[in-house]
């Protein structure tokens, strides 16, 4: 979510001082990305929408605990990794819950009433369909890391920050994922 914004720290400080209106700035800036991250994990527009909402509300409730000066040492737009972590954890909880109750949702089976025509569905062509299917077949952590790297175009450090894994572990998951993806998609770029 690298997108340098020197004003962001001031906005966070205002929200920490109780200025709820200032929070809209952060919501507007990060909402599309947060919905995309949630969708990448839960693969359902309805759940992604709910998760994004929940993540922003929780972030607001806990913004007093957000250590702004510490976060600023790593990046000038510190809210991005934080809200990304919150939504990712919520989305992974949903996955665990689904697994627990053996509730498997079919791709594209989300309630139509909650979908907007302007939403761009992830898979729009044959190459995309094949890549998407290959990523989905990967084991969970490889799938998560591969999706964040390939689809969300995040770098290793960013993924490590978001997932709580070390950079080495991210590289390792990605390396395994790459090997499997190359095996499955070798004919794609001949």
């Amino acid at each position, binding site marked *: 979510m690298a997108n340098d914004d020197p004003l962001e720290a001031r906005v966070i400080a205002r929200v920490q001082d109780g200025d709820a209106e200032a929070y809209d700035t952060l919501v507007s800036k990060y909402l599309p990305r947060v919905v995309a991250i949630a969708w990448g994990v839960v693969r359902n527009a309805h759940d992604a929408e709910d998760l994004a909402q929940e993540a922003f509300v929780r972030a607001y409730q806990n913004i*007093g605990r957000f250590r702004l000066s510490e976060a600023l040492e790593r990046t000038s737009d510190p809210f991005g990794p934080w809200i990304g972590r919150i939504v990712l954890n919520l989305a992974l909880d949903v996955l665990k819950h689904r697994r627990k109750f053996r509730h498997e949702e079919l791709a594209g089976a989300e309630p139509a009433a909650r979908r907007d025509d302007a939403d761009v569905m992830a898979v729009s062509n044959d190459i*995309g369909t094949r890549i998407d299917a290959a990523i989905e077949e990967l084991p969970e952590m490889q799938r998560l890391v591969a999706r964040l790297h390939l689809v969300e175009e995040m770098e290793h450090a960013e993924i490590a920050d978001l997932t709580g894994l070390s950079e080495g572990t991210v590289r390792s998951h990605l390396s395994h994922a790459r090997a499997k993806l190359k095996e499955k998609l070798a004919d794609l770029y001949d």
Partner: protein
Amino acid sequence: MTDDEKFFERLRGDAASLRYRAGDATLARIRTRIHDRIAFGPTTAMPTTAMPSIAELLASWFRPLAAGLAAIALAAAIGLTINTNDSAFGEEKVEIVMGGDTYLVDD
């Protein structure tokens, strides 16, 4: 750039198109719901930096006090138990049965 690297560069380029992009109406709806929950929600009236309530203030005073009293009571109870055991040990009588007769011997 190796063949492997080229493969993944192209893969990354195509995979980027898989990103889910919520439409403007969806984003506006989520934004409104977030705003409503923050502004009017029962548990979200203020961020956690807000002043604590009177109940929270009293609890923060009484919690350590109660913990201290509980520790003193526990120490006293343990002390009493040890003392009681010591005195009971001295008063015990030993019963010896020999040839059909029973003898009681003091400590």
